[in-house]
């Protein structure tokens, strides 16, 4: 290990000395005195120590040719709003259009992609390869525009997914092909004005009329109106309705049914009322609406009956007797939603970083010596410290997201729980990261970050919703901690080893952190993993103790849990970061020795150390001494300067074509010249 580290350091030092851009201010080369600034493309003077297309294989991980095919389809159509800036053409929606125009453009783009066969097999093929392809293509769409991805996500993953998961053969035969070909346009009416994350509390009521063999759906009060229903305001013809099912006066809990809300000409159906949710801070290409049901009658067959059914004469039938389990079965499609959101958050982080880092390699500010040359933004250690840890986190999350997708497409009934917990943790972690990352990138681009066409600022509004939909991030993180606590209690009760959610490390002796951390220890994956294990282990112990203490004081289990929210939050984070570090190490292990692997090791150390630096739990609970915390901080700075020469190669490896970045990522002088006005 020690030897490896020395060798790696050697390699990197050589690299820095021989090829690297100067990393210290004093070594900055003299600039020839130009009367005017020249744009110097970083691609020509930042040498790559590895081939970015090789790194991209680890980041994108699957369906790279399909991704490139779709990028190509987008760049070959005027519908995707090509804009010439200087010598380059960029593809991005015109966010200056009215909400109505943006919605119509989104629909037109969907029809173009439909005609090109992009959605072929999205619902009619069910195997891991088809599922991964669908994920890859949706990710590419999301790189172009979040609205477009969400509108597709609602139609295919929520409406289509509900039919796949809750429906049976009769529903599959009737709806899936027509959905794939957009003969019907689906939406998904779950959230209500009065209930969001707490789906079990929704107030829409459905009863059964055995005289006509129909269900009757009602919105009994204003808080029961369906809210935020994507696709409902303009385009959807059908919806999945989530509703309490009341049979013979007995409430059987939440069920899903299919109701038509518009005819083929787009007229709203009788007994349905629809209103627009209005202009939003982002995602204005999605037509979110509100729906009221006034005694809407639908055929008995429209109940999605994989979990429970109602016989023609009105008997309620279900194989799952426990209403809790029945309800859990209904949440399956939301898992795929959380997976696509996690992936989309990573790709958006990549857009932000690619733009901000490319800009920082071409924009100079201030000289350090009188009349000296101005310094490149990324040659300031402070600028490195702002962007490069975020870059390392984004790499870590890419690998974590890939792992999540893999276990999702190979899911079994046994793995459902793990997928639920991991997708909850990653969705919350990645989407929070995305927003912070975009804000830092926006600031790192200065005033240029404020222009909509430069994306980094605008995307904050577009992606803010990610921390709320498909489960509020805080609620999701609490569920993660709850699941870990359940494992803890099960292990203690039965006196058996910990099993599941990666908690097996709890069975080992408590890791010991060396009292004096050297640079080589800090960069060693064994130390990094130990530190993460120690934190998770201690937080889980503390959380369990606190909950049981509250219970001992007479609080209910539920309320004890609510009172322990601080430790729950810390634990959720510890779990998530430990999973990410482990998937990073696993990915690294698959890479053959060479410069690419060396750079990944730097990124992994950066990821681990920035987590140690940022989470106050390490100091609060004494996992790190004050001296050790100081050593970590110093090492982060060192890692910044070692990653600096690879910055361009690392963002190039994201594989996002130039046309999907923005003018400041390239020749921004040219793009802003009078000749380009």
């Amino acid at each position, binding site marked *: 290990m020690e030897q490896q580290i020395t060798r790696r350091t050697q390699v990197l030092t050589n690299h820095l000395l021989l090829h690297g851009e100067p990393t210290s201010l004093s070594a900055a080369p003299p600039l020839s005195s130009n009367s005017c600034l020249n*744009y110097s*493309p970083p*691609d*020509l003077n930042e040498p790559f120590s590895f*081939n970015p*297309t*090789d790194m991209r294989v680890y980041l994108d991980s699957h369906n790279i*040719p*399909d991704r*490139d*095919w779709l*990028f*190509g*389809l987008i*760049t*070959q159509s005027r519908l995707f709003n090509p804009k010439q800036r200087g*010598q*380059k053409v960029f593809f991005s929606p015109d966010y200056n259009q009215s909400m109505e125009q943006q919605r119509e453009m989104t629909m037109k783009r969907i029809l173009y992609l439909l005609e*090109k*066969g992009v959605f*072929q097999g999205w619902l009619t093929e069910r195997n891991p390869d088809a599922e991964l392809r669908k994920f890859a293509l949706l990710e590419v769409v999301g790189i172009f525009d979040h609205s477009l991805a969400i509108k597709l996500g609602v139609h295919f993953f929520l409406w289509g997914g509900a039919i796949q998961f809750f429906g049976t053969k009769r529903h599959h035969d009737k709806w899936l092909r027509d959905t794939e070909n957009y003969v019907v346009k689906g939406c998904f009416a779950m959230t209500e004005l009065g209930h969001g994350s707490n789906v079990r509390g929704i107030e829409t009521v459905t009863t059964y009329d055995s005289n006509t063999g129909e269900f009757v759906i009602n919105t009994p009060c204003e808080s029961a109106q369906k809210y935020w229903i994507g696709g409902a305001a303009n385009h959807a013809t059908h919806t999945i309705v989530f509703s309490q099912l009341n049979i013979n006066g007995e409430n059987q809990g939440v069920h899903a049914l299919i109701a038509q809300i518009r005819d083929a000409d787009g007229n709203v159906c009788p007994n349905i009322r629809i209103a627009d949710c209005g202009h939003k801070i982002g995602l204005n290409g999605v037509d979110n609406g509100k729906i009221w049901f006034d005694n809407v009658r639908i055929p008995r067959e429209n109940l999605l009956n994989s979990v429970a059914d109602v016989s023609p004469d009105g008997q309620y039938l279900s194989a799952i007797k426990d209403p809790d389990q029945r309800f859990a079965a209904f949440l399956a499609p939301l898992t795929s939603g959380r997976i696509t959101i996690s992936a989309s958050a990573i790709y958006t982080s990549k857009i932000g970083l690619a733009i901000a880092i490319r800009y920082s390699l071409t924009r100079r500010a201030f000289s350090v010596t009188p009349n000296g040359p101005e310094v490149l933004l990324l040659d300031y250690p402070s600028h490195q410290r702002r962007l490069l840890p975020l870059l390392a986190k984004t790499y870590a999350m890419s690998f974590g997201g890939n792992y999540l997708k893999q276990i999702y497409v190979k899911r079994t009934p046994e793995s459902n729980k793990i997928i639920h917990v991991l997708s909850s943790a990653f969705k919350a972690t990645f989407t929070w990261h995305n927003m912070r990352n975009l804000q830092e990138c926006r600031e790192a681009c200065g005033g240029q970050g404020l222009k909509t066409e430069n994306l980094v600022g605008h995307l904050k509004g577009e992606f803010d919703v990610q921390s709320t939909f498909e489960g509020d991030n805080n609620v999701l993180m609490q569920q993660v901690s709850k699941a870990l606590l359940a494992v803890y209690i099960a292990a203690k009760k039965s006196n058996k080893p910990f099993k599941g959610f990666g908690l097996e490390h709890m069975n080992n002796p408590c890791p010991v952190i060396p009292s004096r951390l050297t640079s080589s220890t800090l960069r060693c994956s064994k130390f990094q993993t130990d530190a993460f294990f120690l934190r998770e282990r201690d937080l889980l112990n503390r959380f369990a103790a606190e909950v049981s203490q509250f219970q001992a004081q007479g609080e209910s289990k539920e309320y004890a849990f609510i009172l322990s929210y601080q430790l729950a939050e810390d634990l959720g984070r510890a779990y998530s970061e430990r999973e990410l570090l482990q998937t990073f190490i696993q990915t690294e292990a698959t890479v053959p020795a060479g410069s690419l692997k060396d750079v990944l090791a730097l990124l992994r150390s950066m990821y681990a150390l920035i987590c140690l630096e940022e989470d106050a739990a390490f100091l609060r609970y004494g996992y790190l001494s004050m001296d050790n915390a100081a050593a970590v901080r110093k090492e982060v700075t060192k890692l910044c300067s070692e990653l600096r020469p690879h910055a361009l190669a690392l963002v190039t490896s994201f594989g996002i*074509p*130039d*046309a999907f970045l923005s003018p400041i990522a*390239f*020749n921004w002088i*040219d793009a802003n010249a009078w000749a380009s006005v």
Partner: protein
Amino acid sequence: MAPLNSTKPDDPQVLVEEKLSARILTLNRPKQLNALSFQMISQLLDLFIAYEEDSNVKLVILKGKGRAFCAGGDVSSVVRDIGAGSWRLGANFFWKEFTLNYIMATYRKPQVSILNGIVMGGGAGVSIHGRFRVATENSVFAMPETALGLFPDVGASYYLSRLPGFFGEYVGLTGTRLDGAEMLACGLATHFVPSERLSLLEEALCKVDSSDPAIISAVIDKYSQQPYMKEQSAYHRLNVIDRCFSRRTVEEIISSLEKETLNKKDDWISATLQSLKGASPTSLKISLRSIRQGRLQGVGQCLVREYRMVCHVMQGKLSRDFFEGCRAILLDKDKNPKWEPSKLEFVSDRMVDSYFSKVDDEGWEDLKFPARSNLHVYAIAKL
């Protein structure tokens, strides 16, 4: 000044004429349709590098002697080299050739290529990357590599993917021939000049004494005319091409073309299908992927990728189609290659992936370009 070939000083493979600030380079192997030998490539590379630094040179004209501009790289000699020793000898040829393509694509001074005849494969590589490409009524352009068990290289994944719509996929996969009018229409040529005016054009260009693209373009404009586009030109079929060649896979491209002919017979589609079915299945798949990646990459990245691919082809571990193609088309001339795998469905994604990965061979390296100083980034964006 420029190092000329030493073996046959009386019969140089590239003729050099100095006309004021212009340099006229003539490919001089008319019997071989000016196919590029290693020696020619080396000489061109040396000349281009020298001219870029030489302030007396403002313009480079490249043309061919005889009825061809250039029919491509001298593939049969490459195959001979590989037969005689290591495939790495063949790889050296492409390293040099692709480096030349890169220098031309990022050249600081205007290059005018006079395409008065056959322009195929490597011939396109030494002309299309340059600033001005003059087609005539004698021009015949093609990238015929898929029929040879190869793929469109020399940076073709860069320039083919930048043709309108999905025309590049069509040209690259079928190896179809384009005439001067079609070249101009799709952007492979920048001008069309009737061959009878070429000597006047050349004379005028030699007097320009400027590197300003606008001035040079105006001079060529004076001799240009709007060519007649033949009625049965594929260029009139862009709708069908976009519909079919935009499909995700080669199999889907073929089935969508077949669907087009369900209702009515169509000679053009039949011919297109015939070329696709005669080509190496492996070549078709790697070519499609290469063109699609190329659409999103700079010319340098395209050449680095193509160099990996061509090394895999020369190494012959993944497939021997290239050697079989050369046998059937160039050596035995039975025009009946036996491709292996023989069908598209036998070429898995994983096999295709391998062509895009590093080559596992002692000391093998990715293509690296000479440093280009003072380069304007948009020296690259010529197409």
